[in-house]
């Protein structure tokens, strides 16, 4: 029982990190139909900015998160204007994949050049560091913070997309962009804002998840597959899908690590195969004909 609870705690924390980073990618793939392989690269930029802000500018952790999110969005603007704008919703996936993998390598090279090849840490404020006793075991305080961040992200996204005017316009643009245009919705602006949202979420995830997925120049490639897997298992564009996929995969991976660490990522991918076999469009995915 104790063991099960212990596994569950770690699984939820790991799952939440996966969720926060992957939800941005899920939005890109589901709503904008862009297979954005560079998503991890933007998350990495966020991590680097936060690390730089805390270690060299000595700002507080919360300010660093904000700087990282805003900074990454600023960095992504030229990419949006010059490149991404051309491939929303229409281009064939091969072009998207080639372009975004190119962007990934470009970002890796530039980051390597500016910040050097070594690992960058994001120091935590005293409030979030160290262990916290939660009765049956002690957990890193930061993990609880990550879980809270994940829940808040999921709730606010749901509220944004389902309950606000922006959400209505976004859904209209996604379902029928021609008609939305005709009704006076500026779809370009909606798309640009959604792009910024997706990138910002990636950067946010990169920063708060840095304890579990540490920031280094090859971050963008190392975790690319993991993020893509979460999206395809959950179903692109679905908040519930990304959340449940992250939790299930986090559980599979953590349980595997507890009980049979020498199997590596075997259980993670076994879970992926089983879920995709049963739900070819992902847990909550819609089939795009």
């Amino acid at each position, binding site marked *: 029982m104790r063991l099960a609870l212990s596994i569950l705690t770690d699984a939820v924390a790991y799952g939440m990190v996966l969720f926060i980073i992957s939800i941005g990618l899920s939005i890109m793939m589901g709503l904008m139909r862009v297979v954005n392989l560079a998503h991890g690269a933007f998350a990495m930029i966020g991590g680097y900015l936060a690390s730089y802000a805390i270690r060299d500018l000595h700002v507080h952790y919360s300010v660093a998160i904000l700087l990282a999110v805003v900074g990454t969005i600023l960095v992504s603007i030229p990419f949006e204007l010059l490149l991404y704008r051309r491939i929303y919703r229409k281009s064939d996936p091969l072009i998207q994949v080639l372009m975004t993998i190119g962007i990934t390598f470009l970002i890796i090279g530039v980051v390597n050049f500016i910040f050097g*090849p070594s690992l960058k840490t994001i120091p935590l404020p005293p409030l979030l560091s160290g262990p916290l006793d939660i009765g049956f075991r002690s957990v890193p305080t930061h993990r609880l913070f990550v879980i809270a961040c994940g829940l808040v992200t999921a709730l606010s996204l749901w509220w944004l997309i389902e309950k606000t005017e922006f959400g209505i316009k976004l859904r209209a643009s996604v379902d029928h962009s021609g008609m939305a245009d005709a009704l006076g919705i500026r779809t370009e602006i909606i798309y640009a804002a959604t792009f910024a949202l997706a990138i910002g979420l990636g950067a946010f995830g990169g920063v708060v998840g840095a304890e*579990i997925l540490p920031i280094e120049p090859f971050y963008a490639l190392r975790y690319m597959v993991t993020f893509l897997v979460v999206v395809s298992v959950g179903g692109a564009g679905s908040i519930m899908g990304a959340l449940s996929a992250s939790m299930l995969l986090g559980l599979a991976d*953590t349980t595997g690590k507890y009980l049979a*660490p020498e199997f590596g990522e075997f259980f993670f991918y076994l879970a992926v195969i089983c879920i995709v076999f049963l739900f070819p469009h992902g847990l909550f995915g819609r089939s795009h004909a």
Partner: protein
Amino acid sequence: MIRRTNSILAVALLGLMTDTASADVIKVGVIGTMSGPYALFGANYKMGIDAYIAEHGNKVGNHTVEFIYKDEEGPNPAKSKALAQELIVKDKVQYLAGIYFTPNAMAVAPLLEESKTPLVVLNAATSSIVEKSPYIVRTSFTMWQNTVPAANIAFKNGSKKVAIAVSDYGPGIDAEAAFKKTFETDGGAVVEAIRIPLNTTDFSPIMQRIKSSGADTIFTFLPSGPPTLGFIKAYVDNGLKADGVKLMSTGDVVTEIDLPGIGDSALGMLSTYHYAVSHDSPENKAFLASIVKNGGKVEDVAMTGVAAYDGARVIFKMIEATNGQRDPEKAVAAVKGMKWVSPRGPVSIDPDTRHIRQNVYLRTVTKVDGKLINKESDTVFLDQPDWALSKK
């Protein structure tokens, strides 16, 4: 066709030999991780070799020694083999040096005898590498060499039940075997042995497993870089440090390059290793001064720097002994039993194993003037051989 290729090969080989015999420039190919996550360790090869040249010049008799650097990038045996072939065939190097990763060294080894090229390994630390070719000499360390003292210390410090957690590849498995054998011979018990997949970043589950095993001490080996940081953080954040579970490792986990990233969580950690940048000796001071004079930074120095510095000495000795001729038997024979005082302390090349014998020091991570260092204690294991290869 086969005959023709053979004769072309023979001509090429002949050309290769006469070329080096008459040439005044002796080329040495250095294969190291010059880019990627391990780039600083590769940069140390160049820093160490340049420091040696700054002190001793680049001439042996009337032969000028030239070093050519190639990038092995990461654990990629095929790439390293191709680089070694290029160096041997195209650049006509007389010696090879470097190699960060064990699998890469294994891939290069078969080329040495057919091309008559000695290899001085400057890092790769799996014991069996030197057995793969009689032309391999190693100036770095092995896992057995550094781990046996760690197990002795652990037992002496009162550890009874140890959990071993190592990375699941060559050196990790060597470290596990070395610790288990030594610690159990001393009279302790190993209650848990976990092999962690190389790409693991979340160590929380592993810490929980160690916790439920009831171990009083953890011994770990992970390749320096991203994993070490996560491992030590998980150890602190999951409350094992607070519960009094001790953490020991070889120096690879707390290299001076990684220490600033690991931060204060590492304070008090014990490790056994052959070289600390803070080692207090005139030779080490001179070594670090040469590096700074060449434009390097003391903060960037790692164990690969000193291995390269000593490696350059070994290669210069080989060139001297053979008077610049390609004669690997003579070259390797000349350095067997060679003794000198390195920045890490007195060392020698073991004539039986061609691996370096050296002191292994017990160090504690300490903060001095706001900087984390590996402070060496008075406990020194003198003249340690590779315990897997030789029993003396």
